[in-house]
């Protein structure tokens, strides 16, 4: 079969196109950009260290975080007790490690679960529009305008303090932000022509919005998850410090900090609250660095 002139011309175009080396994969470009951000990398390293230390806490410390040891009360930091001991002789370093487990679990868990709820609602409502969207928007406004502290007080007085109540409150007050983010992304994505093309095949709403569109809405949501994690950890610490958060018998960063309510301890035993305060700040800072790094590296306006 003779080649038509059209084919020949296309061969030329194709040759030209192939001479341009194809750019590297998009994913690795994002990773590269993230790795070039020193603060973000530093944040990621410290974040990983703290998380690993919390997970492997029993391997790192010979002490039991709950065991009262009245012979070694209020000892300052030493080689045996790196962060000293508290008023009942428990090793503060061990408690910080074990507290990290709970605090990070609350922070990350609440952030991820609010994201799941927010995304599930936001994607569908944002893509569908109409009355579903209006209702979802109003509901999210109600939840977002409700002061968190009053919700906490209400729930604590009704059902008592518990870790899961606290997480439930975080999710109730937190999903709205994620929902709005997901919804806003979907509103702009749904006009994209590839979405129109999928609709022209009559694919189901679920396939289109959760499978094909959601991956393109994820990067701002990832950023938001990191920032919310930081915020929830701080809120937990604040609430526990006030005695409204997680029950005091569970070690969390906030509950360890709780002892600083006592002016005597605040003045005389800095090691009971100082190190844990620093750990909280460093961790939150690292999470924020990671969030900023993610935002910069996935920013579509900076992609070629």
């Amino acid at each position, binding site marked *: 079969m003779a080649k038509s002139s059209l084919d020949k011309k296309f061969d030329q175009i194709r040759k030209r196109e192939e001479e341009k080396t194809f*750019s590297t994969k998009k994913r690795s470009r994002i990773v590269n950009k993230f790795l070039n951000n020193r603060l973000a990398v530093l944040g990621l390293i410290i974040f990983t260290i703290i998380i690993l230390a919390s997970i492997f806490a029993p391997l790192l410390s010979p002490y039991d975080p709950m065991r009262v040891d009245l012979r070694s009360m209020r000892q300052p930091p030493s080689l045996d007790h790196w962060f000293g001991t508290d008023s009942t002789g428990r090793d503060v370093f061990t408690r910080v490690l074990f507290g990290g487990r709970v605090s990070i679990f609350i922070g990350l868990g609440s952030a991820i679960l609010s994201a799941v709820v927010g995304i599930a609602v936001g994607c569908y409502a944002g893509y569908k529009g109409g009355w579903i969207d209006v209702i979802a928007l109003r509901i999210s406004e109600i939840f977002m305008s409700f002061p968190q502290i009053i919700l906490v007080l209400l729930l604590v007085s009704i059902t008592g303090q518990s870790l899961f109540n606290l997480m439930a409150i975080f999710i109730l007050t937190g999903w709205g932000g994620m929902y709005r983010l997901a919804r806003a992304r979907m509103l702009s994505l749904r006009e994209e022509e590839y979405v129109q093309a999928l609709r022209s*095949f009559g694919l189901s709403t679920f396939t289109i919005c959760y499978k094909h569109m959601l991956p393109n809405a994820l990067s701002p949501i990832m950023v938001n998850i990191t920032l919310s994690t930081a915020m929830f950890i701080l809120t937990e610490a604040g609430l526990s410090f006030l005695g409204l958060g997680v029950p005091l018998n569970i070690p969390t960063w906030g509950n360890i900090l709780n002892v600083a309510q006592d002016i005597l301890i605040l003045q005389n035993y800095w090691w009971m609250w100082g190190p844990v305060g620093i750990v909280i700040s460093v961790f939150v800072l690292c999470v924020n660095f990671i969030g900023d790094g993610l935002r910069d590296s996935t920013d579509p306006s900076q992609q070629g």
Partner: protein
Amino acid sequence: MKKEILKLRGVKVHFPVQAGVFNRVVGHVLAVDGVDLAIFRGEVLGLAGESGCGKTTLGKAILRLVEPTDGEVKYISQDDDETELTSLEKKDMDPFRKKLQIVFQDPHSSLNPSFTIFGSLQDPLKKFGIKSKEERRKIIGDLLEAVNMRREYMDRYPHEFSGGQRQRIGIVRALCLEPELIVCDEAVSALDVSIQAQVLKLLMQLKKEKNLTYLFITHDLSVTEYLCDRIAVMYLGRIVELCDSEDLYNNTLHPYSEALISAIPVADLDKQTKRIVLEGDVPSPVNPPKGCPFHPRCPKATDICKTEVPTLKKYSTNGNEHYASCHLIDLPEIS
């Protein structure tokens, strides 16, 4: 004997305009405002007009990507079965979604950046019963070769392709279920001129091989002349002239078409006619002018144009049917 594939009657698409705190509807964008049109099997029907006159909306209304507010879109199968599409339930549309497809304008938003070509094309194939992955890969690979690309490209991501390549992938997507009619919405407008010509030739070659019908949307009448069998000119949501493409250029009836044609750059200086400059932009389709919608910009407008709406009437030029809607045509109307 020419057979129709689509017949539109009185198609209207009105978008509500909302304002205020309570999203009250304060008016409507009359994007498409009463279009009657027949598309014949195997033809290339051009749909021309400045941007904002409702061409895309009309194309989408045919595929029900926007729901027509009013009117009928009839699909006529090869065995002459007529189906009214706009009144079908969503799920009953499926057999017709296979037959009617669309190629979009913007090569940058037409492909999903998160999926490989195969990844984004395989769901439609799956939905329409091609269960084995091997078979799906074969169909997409064959089509990629048909648009002069390599089969292996199906495993690449969109950002690895140039605009012309993406547009060809858009064509592959439109072709993957073996449609009968393809709406080409400014399919080449965003491309470099040299690549435009290649893609147009490719479209024509595919049309011949696969017995396709095209509704070829463009804002640029210089592309359509050699491509289209007939051309419909649209202004503010209505068709103002519809005829064989030769007649549109040689026996223009409507002043709007005249202005569009005079704006085409001509290489041959002898043929250069005086350019009719259209003043201003297309008026807002929210409050279209009374009388003839074109009268504020029409160089020939008279008093009657300001009050009476001209209707699309049938004339004959060169022995061919020629529709136009203007008060000042002094040809005998035929019924």
